[in-house]
C-alpha cells in the first residue's frame, strides 16, 4: 500500500503522544486518491484528480480530547503532531509510556474486481457521454443534463495505545445524474444516483443509461405536477427511497453522544416500545458493496450489524470510543470521521428497516386519500425535541386507493417518536436506497439506507394546496 508507516515508528509516536499523562493515544493515517469527471451542458467540462495524504493524532486525558493532524509523514512531522495533540489535551506529569501494537488481520467486507484507478479515463468519459445521451433521448422536454462520475481509493491505517494496529482499503464509485425538463408551467428537475463500495464492475451491474432515463422521465412527469397538499395526511413511501426517514426520525437520536448529553428524545428509553411493533431497525456497516459499508470504522474497530429497534422496542444505541469508554459499553463500529483532518464521532453506516408483512400494492389500495412518495430528498432533525423534516422530490396523490397526479416538490415534517408509532403498514419488498452523505457537526460521511414500502398514518405535508 501507499501509506506505509513502520510499526516501530507508530509505537514511538503514540508513546510520545502519551508523555503528558494521557490515558489514550491514537494515530489515524489516510492516503486517498480520487478522480472525478463533471459533465454539464452536453460536454465533459473537467477531469479532476486529487490526492490527500496525512495523519491525525488524538490524545485523550480525562474528559479532554486533543487532536492535531499533519501531511508531513516523516518521523519529525509525526512527532510534532503528537506533541501538538498532547499539548491540546492538557498537561500533567505522565512519565514514560511504552506502546506495543498487535497487527490485526484486515476485516474484509467488500470485494473489488476492477480497481477504478486502473480503468482508463477515456472509459469514464464514455460512460458520461452515454448517460447524457440516454437522458436527452428521453423526450424533447429535456433541456439540460448534468452528470458526475467519481471514484476514490482510501487506504487507512489506525493504531492506538490499546494495541490496535489495523488497515483498510476503501474503494468507492459514484454516479449522479440530474435532468431538467421545460414545459408551459416552467422547469422541473429529476435526479438519480448510484454509489457502491466496489470497483468499476459496479457499472456492469447497474445500467446507468436506464438510470439516466429514469432521472429524465421523473423531470418530464413533474411538468404536469400540481401544488402539493398542505396539512396532515397518510403518507406511503416507496421501497428503497425512504430510509432517510429513519435516519432522521430516530437514527441521529440513537447516537450515544446526543444520548449522553440528554439531547435526544430516545435517552433512557432502552427496553421501551418506541415504534410500531412492525419496525425492526438495523445499522450495519458490513453489507457488501453498500455506500455506508466499511471494513473497520475510523477508530480501527471492525464494523458490525447492530439491531437498534427490535419489533418496536429500543434495544441499544450506537457508540464511538469516547462514549463507550465513558460508560463501559462495547464498541459498535460507529466511530467515523470525514478525513484525517477530523475528530471521529458517533455516526451511522447503513441504516435500514427490515421487511414487514404487507404486499406493497395493498398498502396503496388501503389508502383512500394520501400522498405517495416515490423519491425523497435530504432531511434534517432536531434530536432534542424529535422534530424532523425530509424533502419529497417525486410524489403523487393517492385517491381512492390509486396513485394519481404528480405533485410539486416540498418538505414533510413530523415528530420522530410519533411517526415511528404511526407506521401502520410495512411492505415485504425491502430495497436499499441511494448513496447519501450524512452531515453532522460540519463533517460529511457516506451512509446508506433502505426500507420496504411503508405507510405513516399521518404526517404533515408542506405544500400550498388546501
Amino acid at each position, binding site marked *: 500500500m501507499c501509506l506505509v508507516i513502520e510499526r516501530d515508528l507508530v509505537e514511538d509516536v503514540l508513546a510520545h503522544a502519551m508523555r503528558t499523562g494521557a490515558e489514550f493515544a491514537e494515530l489515524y493515517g489516510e492516503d486517498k486518491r480520487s478522480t472525478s469527471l463533471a459533465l454539464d451542458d452536453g460536454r465533459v*467540462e473537467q477531469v479532476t484528480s486529487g490526492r490527500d495524504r496525512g495523519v491525525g493524532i488524538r490524545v485523550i486525558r480525562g474528559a479532554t480530547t486533543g487532536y492535531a493532524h499533519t501531511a508531513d509523514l516523516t518521523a519529525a512531522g509525526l512527532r510534532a503532531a503528537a506533541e*501538538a495533540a498532547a499539548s491540546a489535551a492538557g498537561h500533567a506529569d505522565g512519565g514514560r509510556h511504552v506502546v506495543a501494537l498487535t497487527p490485526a488481520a484486515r476485516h474484509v467486507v467488500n470485494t473489488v474486481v476492477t480497481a477504478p484507478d486502473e480503468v482508463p479515463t477515456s472509459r469514464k468519459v464514455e460512460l458520461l457521454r452515454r448517460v447524457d445521451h440516454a437522458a436527452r433521448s428521453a423526450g424533447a422536454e429535456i433541456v439540460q443534463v448534468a452528470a458526475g462520475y467519481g471514484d476514490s481509493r482510501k487506504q487507512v491505517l489506525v493504531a492506538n495505545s490499546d494495541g490496535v494496529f489495523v488497515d483498510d482499503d476503501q474503494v468507492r464509485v459514484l454516479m449522479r445524474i440530474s435532468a431538467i425538463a421545460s414545459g408551459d408551467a416552467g422547469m*422541473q428537475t429529476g435526479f438519480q444516483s448510484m454509489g457502491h463500495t466496489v470497483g468499476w464492475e459496479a457499472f456492469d451491474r447497474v445500467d446507468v443509461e436506464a438510470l439516466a432515463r429514469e432521472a429524465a422521465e421523473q423531470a418530464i412527469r413533474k411538468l404536469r405536477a400540481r401544488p402539493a397538499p*398542505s396539512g396532515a395526511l397518510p403518507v406511503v413511501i416507496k421501497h428503497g427511497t425512504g430510509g432517510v426517514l429513519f435516519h432522521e426520525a430516530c437514527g441521529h437520536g440513537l447516537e450515544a453522544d446526543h444520548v449522553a448529553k*440528554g439531547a435526544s428524545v430516545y435517552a433512557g428509553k432502552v427496553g421501551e416500545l418506541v415504534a410500531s411493533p412492525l419496525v425492526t431497525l438495523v445499522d450495519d456497516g458490513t453489507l457488501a458493496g453498500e455506500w455506508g459499508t466499511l471494513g473497520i470504522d475510523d477508530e480501527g474497530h471492525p464494523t458490525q450489524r447492530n439491531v437498534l429497534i427490535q419489533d418496536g422496542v429500543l434495544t441499544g444505541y450506537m457508540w464511538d470510543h469516547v462514549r463507550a469508554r465513558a460508560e463501559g459499553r462495547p464498541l459498535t463500529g460507529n466511530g467515523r470521521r470525514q478525513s484525517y483532518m477530523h475528530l471521529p464521532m458517533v455516526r451511522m453506516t447503513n441504516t435500514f428497516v427490515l421487511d414487514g408483512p404487507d404486499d406493497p400494492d395493498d398498502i396503496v389500495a388501503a389508502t383512500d386519500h394520501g400522498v405517495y412518495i416515490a423519491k425523497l430528498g435530504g432531511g434534517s432533525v432536531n434530536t432534542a425535541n424529535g422534530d424532523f423534516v425530509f424533502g419529497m422530490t417525486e410524489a403523487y396523490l393517492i385517491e381512492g386507493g390509486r396513485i394519481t397526479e404528480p405533485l410539486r416538490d416540498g418538505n414533510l415534517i413530523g415528530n420522530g417518536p410519533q411517526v415511528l408509532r404511526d407506521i401502520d403498514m410495512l411492505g415485504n419488498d425491502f430495497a436499499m436506497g441511494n448513496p447519501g452523505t450524512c452531515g453532522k457537526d460540519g463533517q460529511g460521511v457516506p451512509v446508506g439506507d433502505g426500507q420496504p414500502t411503508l405507510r405513516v398514518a399521518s404526517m404533515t405535508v408542506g405544500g*400550498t394546496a388546501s
Partner: protein
Amino acid sequence: MSELLTIADRVVAQARPGEQVEAFVSRGGETEVRVYQGEVEHVVSAQSEGIGIRVIRDGRTGFAYAGALTDDAVADVLAAARENVGFGEPDEWAGLAEPDGVPVTEQVLWSDELAAVAADDKIDLAMQLERLTAACDPRVRVDEANYADAYGEAAVVTTTGIRQHGRENGCYVSVSTLADDGDETQSGFGFSVGRHTGELDLERAAREAAERATRLLGATKPTSRRLTVVLDPFVTAQFLGIISSTLNGESVVKGRSIFRDRLGEAVAAPTFTLVDDPTDARAYTATDVDGDGLAARRNVLVDGGVLQRFVHSSYSARRAGTASTGNALRGGFRGTPGVGCHALQLQPGTRSQAELVAGVDDGVLIQSVSGIHSGVNPISGDFSTGAAGLLISGGELGGPVREFTIASTLQRMLLDVVEVGGDVEWLPMRAAGVSLVIRDVTMSGS
C-alpha cells in the same frame, strides 16, 4: 515575498506554448475548542496546505490537486492536470480570467491581535460562554459551548497576467442550548463572530441561545392556513442564499435559473433592493479578490424590485457575452472556481422587528427553518421548509409553535415582500440578516 506566490510563480513559469496555466496555492489552519460542564471536551488544532492546478489547452480543461506543497507533490499535480486536459471536451468559452483594470478595494482581513491569542485564553472564552449561558435561565442546559478561529493565506497566479496574494483570519464563539420543562426539551443556539476576540459579544450569544430555547417551551402545532410571515434576520439570510442561486450567471447561461429571461423586469416588490457587496467591511465574507483573482466589487442585483444583473465569473461572463462581475467563488485548492454571491445585503428599512410585528394581524414570527436544502427547488421555484416560531395575533406576539412548514414559491415570495426591517445583523454567512415580512405564505400544521 510570500512563499506561496513563489510556488505558484514557479508552476506558471512551466507553462508550455499553447497552454493556459493557473496555480492556486493555499495554507491555513484552525483551532476549535469545545467545553462541556466546565471541562474541555476537545481541542482540535488543524493545519493544512495544498495546491490546485488548472491547465487549459485548445478549449479543454484539466485540473488536479494535492494536499501537500513539496516539490514532488507540485510536480505530480502539474503532470496530472496536463494529463486530464486530454479527456475534457472542447469548450469555446474555456479560459482563465484576464486582468480587467478594476482596482482592488483593500480590506482589513488580517488581525495580528487574533494571531497572538494564547490557547488558554481561547479555552477561557468557551468556558465563559458556557457559564454566561447557563446563568441566563434555570431551565437552560448547555449542550456545547465552542470557540473557533481560522486563518488562511492564498496565492493565485495565471499565465494570463493574474497574480494575487492575500491572507485573512477570524474567530467565533457558538453555544447550543437545551431548555427543559417536565418531559419537554427544546433547543436553541447563539453565536458571535469577529476579526479578533475583542469583537466577540459573549453576552449576546448567551442571551440569544437561552431565549431561543426557552421561548419554544410549550410550543404547539398550529392549524394550517395562509398568513403573513416575519422572518428573523438569521432566517432571511438563509432565504437570500437561495435567491442568490437563481441570480448565478452560470445557472443563467445553462438555462437553470427561473429569472434567466427577466433582466430589466420587476421580479420583486418595490421595497426589495438586493446588493452583493464584498467591499463592505462589516460583512463577514468581505473579500478583496474573487476566485479568479479579479477585484471583488459592489453589484446591485435587484433595485426597487427590478432585476438589474446576474453575477458572473470570467467563464460564465464570456459565455453570456458580458464582463465578469468579480463573482468567481473558490472553495479551496481542491476545486476550480464556481460562481456565486460574496456578501449579500438587502437595503434595510427603518422599523424594528417589534414594529413590524405590530403591523401583522394574523402571522407567525419564524425563528428557525429546517430542510432548506431538501424542500426548496430553485429550478422550479418551489419553496417549502420546516419551521418553528411564535404566532402573531392582532400585532402581538403569541404562543410558540413548532412542527409545521411554510410554503410558497420563490417567484411569489419576492413579489409578496411587504417590508424590510431596519435591524441588519452581520452573520457568519454569505448574506447579512434583517427582518423580512412576506404575506400570503401557506402554513401547514394540523
